[in-house]
């Protein structure tokens, strides 16, 4: 699946997008898998209450299953307008 990062999450991890092969069942499992990879991921995912997640471009939550999902995006709370 494609994993996208925006705003300070993108800056902290150091890239806007990557393709990941994963067996993670839920968003939380994917977060745990990424955080275990490298410190920069662990730093970005340190406080999940400061993050939002979208699955296939729809806002979702960290308990959501990943089956069939093609695009996951992590970002801070939005500041439009």
């Amino acid at each position: 699946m494609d994993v996208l990062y925006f705003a300070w999450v993108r800056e902290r991890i150091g890239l806007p997008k990557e393709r990941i092969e994963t067996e993670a069942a839920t968003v939380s499992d994917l977060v745990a898998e990424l955080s275990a990879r490298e410190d920069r991921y662990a730093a970005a995912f340190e406080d999940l209450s400061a993050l939002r997640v979208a699955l296939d471009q729809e806002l979702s939550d960290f308990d959501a299953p990943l089956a069939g999902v093609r695009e996951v995006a992590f970002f801070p709370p939005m500041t439009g307008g």
Partner: protein
Amino acid sequence: MRIVVQEQPFDLGAEANAFAAGDDANGAIVTFTGVVRDLASGDLDVMEIEHYPGMTERALTKIAQEAQERWSLGDVLVIHRHGRLAPGDRIMMVATAARHRKDAFEAAEYLMDYLKSRAPFWKKEITSSGAEWVDAKDEDEDALTRW
């Protein structure tokens, strides 16, 4: 309904005129324009707006559709810019058309409330002393509870 996400400036007068010329059944047109506000210190050089191409258009369309379901509206327009903007630049506008003003005013407020915290835009303030992401405000999230 028209949803526009673009980097280039928009012509507020031309957009408002074109929108207002739509349909004689609409007795009320409300427009709101968001402008890049300078910091209290007057130090803001650039406001950089990042967005999530694809999701942005979907989220704005969904918010506008919800407004059309809730209020009796003749038309809805949302224009939102991204990229690098300067203090005083127009960031975005919404316009609503309705038979009566109450629907037009309320729908415009609803659009703004949802657009602030449910459309994937992120603002970064750049000054001579550095760059800082703008934090989402609790009051913006709280504003959604009234709908």
